[in-house]
């Protein structure tokens, strides 16, 4: 997109949207959309407050734990499935089922089994992320070029050597891709979990603000959340590019 001959940076239209937000807010078109400036001011106000810090901490904890389990279990199961045909045929239908299933429906089950707290949220987060990680890890292992395997064999590489020097790196781009998508899903999972379970983290804050019609606060927290989610996603994309420079056509 060019303006007066200068190339505009990729996301620059967000500036226009921000301006629009400000105008709509000032014009007081609806109670629900306060001006952006007011929201930003509120944002700086509440960022330091204990309530916010607590919510952020709880969410970060649940998110990290959930992602950790999803990554560890996901990559392991995925690799095992990629290498063992029987396991693959037994598990793959289920992985595909849960990949496309509306996992939100399982949250009430988790609430009933594990209570209204952190545990349920961590499990929700893991559940959202793990399936795509399994699938991509499996794909990463399966697409390892047969020639590489034969080459390793030919040159007398030991299984350990072969794994760490060749297979790991060959599968890595695909696995990382899966982890990136998994983490984005985990963000959605941790939020959905909190929305439904609602007494911890940002879920609790949203309840509080909406009950008291604190629109400015509400949007402020929303912006923080979206900004975090987006930053994480971009950072992962960057990491993926850095590590997977050798993954040609994917």
């Amino acid at each position, binding site marked *: 997109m060019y303006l007066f001959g200068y190339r505009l940076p990729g996301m620059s239209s967000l500036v226009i949207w921000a301006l629009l937000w400000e105008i709509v807010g000032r014009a007081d078109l609806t109670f629900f959309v306060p001006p952006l400036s007011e929201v930003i001011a509120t944002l700086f106000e509440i960022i330091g407050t204990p309530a916010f810090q607590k919510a952020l901490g709880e969410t970060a904890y649940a998110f990290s734990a959930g992602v950790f389990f999803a990554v560890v279990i996901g990559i392991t199961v995925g690799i095992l499935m990629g290498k063992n045909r029987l396991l693959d045929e037994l598990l793959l*239908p289920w992985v595909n089922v849960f990949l496309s*299933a*509306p996992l939100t429906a*399982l949250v009430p089950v988790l609430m*009933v089994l594990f209570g209204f707290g952190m545990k349920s949220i961590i499990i929700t987060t893991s559940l959202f992320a793990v399936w795509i990680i399994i699938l991509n890890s499996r794909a990463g292992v399966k697409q390892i070029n047969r020639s590489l395997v034969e080459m390793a064999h030919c040159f007398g590489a030991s299984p350990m050597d072969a794994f760490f020097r060749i297979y790991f790196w060959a599968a890595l781009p695909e696995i990382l891709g899966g982890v990136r998508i998994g983490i984005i899903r985990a963000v959605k999972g941790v939020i959905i979990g909190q929305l439904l379970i609602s007494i911890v983290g940002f879920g609790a804050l949203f309840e509080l603000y909406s009950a008291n019609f604190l629109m400015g606060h509400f949007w402020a927290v929303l912006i923080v959340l*979206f900004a975090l989610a*987006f930053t994480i996603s971009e950072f992962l994309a960057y990491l993926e590019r850095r590590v997977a420079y050798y993954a040609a056509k994917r």
Partner: protein
Amino acid sequence: MLSRANTLKILSALVLFGAWEIAGRVPVSYAFPTFLDSMRSLFEMIGNGMMYEAYKETLRPLVIGIIISAVLGIGLGLWVGLNNFFDWLFSPLFIVMQAAPLAALIPLLVLAYGIGLTSKVLVVCIMAMPVIVLNTSGAVRNTPESYKEMGKSFLASRTSILLRIVIPAASPVIFAGLRLGISAGFIGAILAELKITPTGVGDIITYSRSIADYPSMYAAIFSIILLAVLFLNLLEKIETVLFKGNQRGYVSD
């Protein structure tokens, strides 16, 4: 004699349901019914028409939301894909929406639009639209240059190139986007039911939970997951047939 693949599928289903049954008998928790109990409850509810009534309620915002998302989403996607200005203007918005947990907007929608059908439809829409728009615009933008050049060399007008080359070439990815959008729409519909007001299937879930009728609760959850999975698998099969396997869309979001 069944093929090996199908035998194993049935076997693994049996394994899973068997594990469920055993876990229920142990019991893993007082709130964990056996597989058979849950299935019994499911068939009861189907038999007395409760399931049917419930799904009528639940599917309404889903269907309406999906139709709106599909029409608006593809339309907007085409517009953004073909016009550089609108690409610059709208793409960042949808990219952010794609990465962000849009579910967080639900309390806001409830505040603004109440607890009726409107807010539920809106929830489905905000969940489904981003991926539809992005897939459509991406597909249109990435039409292989070779096809367009071929069209130009054979004197195709700009409209012809759009209708006969760009759109058919983009169709697999657009369809995949629709499939992903519907998947997200399901999540939206359920969230709406569980969070806004329970009606339909959400009502069965919440009510059964409150009276500790766990078989019914699990039955309802099982049914909606089953429905979503069956429907999405059907869409995938249609996708394979329609596009004859020679052009496939993206597999994941």
